[in-house]
């Protein structure tokens, strides 16, 4: 009885978790091996990149700009009484570049592009389109999955850089025009602590996040079972797993890249 309960509520979930993780890793490995085997479908890569860029840009801008504003207000709340207003922009830019723009961009990409990929691939699986491609001697991983991998791998950093500029613009507008911070102080403060290393780190992070979104949502979509309900579940799972994964991963990446010993 007790053993049965342990089996059902502890052993099985843990087993299932590692089973799933293993499958995801194998799926990613298979895709990456196939990446270096011709043919590469250029047209698909372009359409997918275009799709990701056009659908994600507005959500990214709409989330990152307000966050820039908020950061400016809260930073000023602390720094103004201390009389170090000019440090405000240095602080905001560090948080924005190192953390918030990669994280927020990837969350929006997971929510927008990730779910749509999972749902799209899932529908294709349910309608046997993937099998049909298989029978027509076109590897569906090469035709469907790899273009999506590449699209996310390229678009994620680009959108992150855009998000960084938008976020800083947001905080500039609030601090200079609303809070009355000196324009010159804000602009010089930007370069006090920021280094190229930070920008590189942010781009590296966002590449990793892009791959995480690609692997998880494509995996979830590609192996859908259970009809229309299964497609819905896959899209839902994809976004939740993506966001949890890279918020956890974010901690580890940050500690590797920026921890001060």
């Amino acid at each position, binding site marked *: 009885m007790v053993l049965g309960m342990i089996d059902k509520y502890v052993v099985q979930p843990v087993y299932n978790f590692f089973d799933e993780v293993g499958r995801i890793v194998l799926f990613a490995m298979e895709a990456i*091996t196939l990446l270096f085997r011709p043919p590469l479908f250029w047209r698909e890569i372009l359409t997918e990149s275009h799709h990701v860029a056009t659908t994600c840009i507005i959500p990214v801008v709409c989330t990152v700009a307000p966050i820039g504003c908020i950061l400016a207000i809260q930073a000023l709340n602390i720094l103004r009484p201390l009389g170090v207003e000019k440090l405000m922009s240095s602080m905001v830019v560090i948080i924005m570049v190192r953390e918030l723009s990669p994280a927020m961009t990837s969350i929006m990409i997971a929510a927008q592009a990730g779910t749509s990929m999972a749902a799209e691939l899932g529908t294709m699986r349910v309608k046997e389109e993937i099998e049909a491609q298989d029978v027509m*001697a*076109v590897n569906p991983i090469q035709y469907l999955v790899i273009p999506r991998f590449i699209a996310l791998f390229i678009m994620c950093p680009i959108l992150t850089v855009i998000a960084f500029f938008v976020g800083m613009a947001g905080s500039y507008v609030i601090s200079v025009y609303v809070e009355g911070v000196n324009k010159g102080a804000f602009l010089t403060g930007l370069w006090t602590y920021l280094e190229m290393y930070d920008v590189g780190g942010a781009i590296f992070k966002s590449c990793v996040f892009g791959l995480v979104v690609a692997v998880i949502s494509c995996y979830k979509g590609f192996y859908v079972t259970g009809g229309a309900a299964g497609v819905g579940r896959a899209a839902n799972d994809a976004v939740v797993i993506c966001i949890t994964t890279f918020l956890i991963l974010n901690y580890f990446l940050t500690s590797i890249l920026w921890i001060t010993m």
Partner: protein
Amino acid sequence: MGFLDQIAKQFRGEYAYTPELVLKEMREKGIKIRVRGLTKSFGGLTVLKDLDLDVYDGETLCMLGESASGKTVFLKSLAGIEHPDSGEIYIDEHDVMNAPPRQLYEMRLGLSMQFQQGALFESVSALENVQWPLVMHATVSPQEAEDRAAKDLVSVGLTPDMHWKLPSLLSGGMQKRVALCRAIVERKALILFDEPNAGLDPIKCAAIDNLLLRIKKQFKATLIMNTSELFTAYNLSDRIGIIYRGKIVEIGEPGSIKSSKHPYVDEFTRKSKEFLPQILAYQEELASWEGEKVDDGRRDSEHLGKTTGGF
């Protein structure tokens, strides 16, 4: 475990070929596909049980059977997209059961398949669907691919104004035709049809049958066809295989199936026996029919599909 095996196979990638003795025997007897002891179960449900079959080169074989009798799984196993638990499948020199994915793709260059639900790509037009395999394999120029696809679509009865419609805007019968067209456009030596006319009304059914008959006569390809329509099987096939509970219980020419003593086969064909004379008489009478078709153009009206498509 199966999943890991598959991945391992992918990385190892050793090609698996039909044993030479078997291949020699197959060549001598003109056998294209040999299936032995094929078994597949999903969960506790056994779908295919020890199925043996030889398919001869250039013949048309109809597989008849109930829904859920394992016909589709059998066809998918031949194409290598379903992985049976045990058994042997040899298609020419390829050992399908043990072939790594790379070899399967090579083997599939020699066959094509029409899926039960059509499996048309929803996001592109009918014409693009049909030319897809030609474009992907890049055996011909894109322009020629389009021409060939358009020509085939016209030959199955889709007028050029329908070529650029999305599959979802076409009626059920039209979708079947597009799917059929995609299966034949490359003129493969082995074509698998999964229920080419299921769920269509008798007239549409007859139209598809005539189409298949034409394909059979023109192509000289090996056709394997799943169907639950007796008349299709009688009209088209060189041999009929009756599949029951994952096994082939009877296989032979249409005539021998009609007079079979096997209880299941008898039950299967009984319904039609009574009415067959009348049907044949009417068919004969109308064969020489000449006149105008009565058509009020409702197939062109798209809104009708939405208002009459079931409830």
